[in-house]
């Protein structure tokens, strides 16, 4: 089937995108505000069409370990959850990073800590970008700002995770997950055959087909020198990703005196704030990191050149601002404006914060 234009929620769009990508398996557990991913998949019954496996697991822990198992065999597998569930998945995510397995994880963030709230939040930035589980590792983290990007990042996330053999995360929030927008769904791509998987993933535990040497997927190595080697190999991979994969978007940055930096849905609010500020004669530009890891350091550094100050707007108490300050070495003033507990700032509120925290200072 070809490309289709539809109106739907971000969570529903992810389900459609996964089937169309040729995803082999989804393993999930219900949690608000992302349960529509599993519900949509169950209602679309892809096992009848593409052969994709969909399974409601007994817990987030089981779901991520199913993803670990599926990924070990070279299949394109994914899971989705929201903040408290993602905390539970950290064990499996760390094991997948250690065992160098490709997989896609969607976090439709809600407020924390603890059970927190079911309202939108961006408070899992640290968890997503700095590792999250134990050990020295990173995930590739993509931050969608629209339902369209929820769709696009399914394919991008899978492609990058297979390219680098590392798990990728779509770090969305309750706004992008729940809002409905027009979306272009890509054409269906056939799932890879067993032969194609064996060719693409010679490391995968698909059974010793053709009497080949056995494959072992493990993150364990008790010999310290070998474990150091494993870690160096991971770090080399991360350096390569940092070099090649940073992505960001800039709007009106060329003539701007002030810069708003925001990711995900909040970048949409900041785009409106930028318009309001410009109507008032304040030259504001917007920089939106798309990959949160690798963080677009160069983009932010260049974007900050010649500006009078930066306001970082997030639905948290100040997380991405640390990466911004590191990227520009505090060469210009950087302030933070954040709302917590599920409250979403209005564009005017953002402009007022910019005036108060940066311009009038």
């Amino acid at each position: 089937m070809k490309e289709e234009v539809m109106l739907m929620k971000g969570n529903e769009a992810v389900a459609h995108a996964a089937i169309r990508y040729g995803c082999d398996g989804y393993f999930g557990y219900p949690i608000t505000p992302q349960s529509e991913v599993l519900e949509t998949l169950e209602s679309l019954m892809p096992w009848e069409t593409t052969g994709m496996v969909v399974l409601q697991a007994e817990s987030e822990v089981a779901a991520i370990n199913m993803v670990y198992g599926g990924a070990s065999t070279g299949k394109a597998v994914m899971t989705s959850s929201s903040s408290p569930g993602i905390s539970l998945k950290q064990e499996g995510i760390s094991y997948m990073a250690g065992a160098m397995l490709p997989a896609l994880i969607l976090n439709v963030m809600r407020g924390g800590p603890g059970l927190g709230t079911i309202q939108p939040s961006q408070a899992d930035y640290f968890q997503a970008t700095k590792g999250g589980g134990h050990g020295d590792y990173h995930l590739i983290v993509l931050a969608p700002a629209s339902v369209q990007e929820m769709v696009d990042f399914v394919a991008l996330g899978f492609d990058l995770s297979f390219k680098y053999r590392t798990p990728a995360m779509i770090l969305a929030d309750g706004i992008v997950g729940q809002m409905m927008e027009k979306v272009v769904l890509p054409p269906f791509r056939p799932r890879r055959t067993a032969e194609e998987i064996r060719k693409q993933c010679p490391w995968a535990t698909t059974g010793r087909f053709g009497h080949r040497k056995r494959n072992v997927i493990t993150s364990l190595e008790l010999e310290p020198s070998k474990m150091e080697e494993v870690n160096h190999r991971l770090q080399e991979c991360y350096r390569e990703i940092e070099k090649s994969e940073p992505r960001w978007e800039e709007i009106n940055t060329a003539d701007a005196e002030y810069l708003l930096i925001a990711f995900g849905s909040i970048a949409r609010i900041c785009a409106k704030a930028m318009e309001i500020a410009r109507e008032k004669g304040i030259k504001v530009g917007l920089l939106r990191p798309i990959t949160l890891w690798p963080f677009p350091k160069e983009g932010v550094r260049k974007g900050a050149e010649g500006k009078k100050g930066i306001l970082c707007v997030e639905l948290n108490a100040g997380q991405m601002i640390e990466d911004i300050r590191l990227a520009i070495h505090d060469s210009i003033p950087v302030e933070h404006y954040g709302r917590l507990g599920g409250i979403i700032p209005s564009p005017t509120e953002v402009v007022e914060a910019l005036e108060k925290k940066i311009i009038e200072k």
Partner: protein
Amino acid sequence: MEIKDIIKEENKVYSKPELLDNVHMHYCPGCSHGVVHKLIAEVVAEMGITDKTVGVSPVGCAVFAYNYIDVDWIEAAHGRAPAVATAVSRLWEENVVFTYQGDGDMAAIGTAETIHAANRGENIVMVFINNAIYGMTGGQMAPTTLVGQKTSTTPYGRRIDLNGHPLEITDILATLSGTCYVTRQSVHTPGAARKTKAALKKAFENAIAKRGTSVVEVVSTCNSGWKMSPVKANEWMVENMFDKYPLGDLKVE
């Protein structure tokens, strides 16, 4: 007669299974793991399923099972082997998937994954080594530790009021609709080992025929953890473990 005259094919009474690697095992002398590994290697080779068998190893002493049996292996996080096996089995229906788990893995940290995989009737084999102790971490209490049994975390013996009762996970699994074959065996005598091998074969046949989940518990010794000689450990197992964990089939469908 010279030794070279004796070493002839017709005089051979025993061979190491071809799927068992030529390496030193890290298991303690007297431990049951080695025998169970050997039996699995024999069964897989004899059934001609070497190229489509995927093992899922646990956390515990058998974490390194992948170093000894020459099939594809996935090393799972502690207790998660049934979840890992679920995905492999569902995504590669033509493959034969088994988990190899200890008592802590199966009946403490992984109880949820174990029960739910079995309840879904995943077409997998669960091999459960029950030696009533945590061997790898140095002999702590396991969910299956007997009442009164001394371990490093029950130095005065397991007490029901402090530690609860030994968990009969295999009996629980036998009650679930998803299991098709649940049996309890041991490997302390050649005869017992032969019965375990037959049980493993039946379990693998069930997985191939997609009859549901098969569970083969092997009541085992951990002579190091129990602080006994291998012979004494076998005796202690017969005298103490078999009362609580009687051998035989719990469910055959």
